[in-house]
């Protein structure tokens, strides 16, 4: 039965996808191919759409595959299944967290994890931004439009900070970047 298959398939994805959306993509590919729901080409297209629409990539993909396979109910079931494991795991951790945080060994582990995550976020930001602006190391290609957009965005952030003495909201920054994309790439 397709509903049960969707539920079990995406439950598995939700359960084993550590480290965010990009890590989950290969897991989703395995599950989707195992069940033979859609072909490789369609999946590649769905991944591209999931990356270009708002929200967590995993949720987007679950909704997309579910809806393609079994309409609204399929989308609902797949999305619920992909979210459920993290939801309950976090609830359990929250219940234990207060006492865990008092433990000095847990503190020592956190003392390594926190700076590590900061390093990972920093590296991801640098890599993504340079990738968009200058292409990859093997194939450097200066992307003039992207550099213009980056200039507009940085100027907006600095200008707003200077004029309003407040940080520009990240949401506004995303809106500006979309408009800048339409204008700069459109002309």
């Amino acid at each position, binding site marked *: 039965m397709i509903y049960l298959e969707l539920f079990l398939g995406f439950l598995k994805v939700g359960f084993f996808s*550590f480290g965010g959306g990009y890590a989950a993509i290969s897991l989703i590919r395995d599950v989707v191919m195992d069940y033979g729901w859609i072909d490789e080409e369609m999946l590649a297209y769905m991944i591209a759409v999931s990356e270009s*629409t708002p929200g967590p990539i995993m949720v987007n993909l679950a909704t997309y595959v579910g809806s393609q396979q079994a309409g609204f109910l399929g989308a609902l079931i797949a999305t619920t299944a992909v979210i459920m494991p993290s*939801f309950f795991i*976090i609830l359990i951790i929250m219940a234990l967290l207060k006492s865990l945080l008092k433990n000095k060994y847990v503190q020592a582990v956190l003392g390594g*994890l926190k*700076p590590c995550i*900061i390093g990972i976020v920093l590296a991801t930001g640098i890599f993504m931004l340079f990738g968009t602006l200058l292409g990859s190391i093997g194939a450097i290609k200066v992307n003039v439009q992207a550099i213009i957009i980056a200039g507009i965005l940085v100027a907006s952030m600095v200008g707003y900070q200077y004029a309003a003495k407040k940080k520009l*909201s990240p949401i506004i920054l995303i809106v500006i970047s979309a408009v800048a994309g339409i204008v700069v790439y459109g002309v």
Partner: protein
Amino acid sequence: MNILLDLFLTFAKIGLFTFGGGYAMISIIENHCVERKKWISHDEMSNMLVVAESTPGPIAVNCATYTGYKMAGFMGALIATLGMAVPSFVVIFLISMFLDNFLEITIIANAFKGIKVGVGILILNAGINMVKKMSKKKKAVIIMICSCVAMLAINIFAWNFSAISMMLIAAAVSLILFIISGGAKQKGGEEE
């Protein structure tokens, strides 16, 4: 405003404007949950990221569940998670029903090229802010720099090494240093 409604609307807004995966969302969550609503502190935010990164599932969902539970228990967790998922669900569902060639629409493709630049800046900005606020102890700074350099190398050379394995190494190194330094005999953690 009712806290449940507030949680729902705030996380729906975060869900609607998060492009390009979990890290891009850090800036938006920080802006809303830490700076504006003061639901969680900076320190809780970094604890939350550790929990989100080391547990399965979308980081955004983990963060919504965490904040929702903290503010209003089980119902809060449920409502915040729902709020986070609803915008993606609606957008994707409409696309899958009505738009077969979504990515070929020029205006959308162009907007997304712009958003990609914005997302890069947001993630870099989130990283820089976290560095500014992190503990300046030698050990933490060294782990941060090593992780950053290693992750850059992994990305650039497309090595098959996941962020989660790197986190395991960082946790192990930190724990071993703690035990060697005799910290186990002292009261409280080294981070105090």
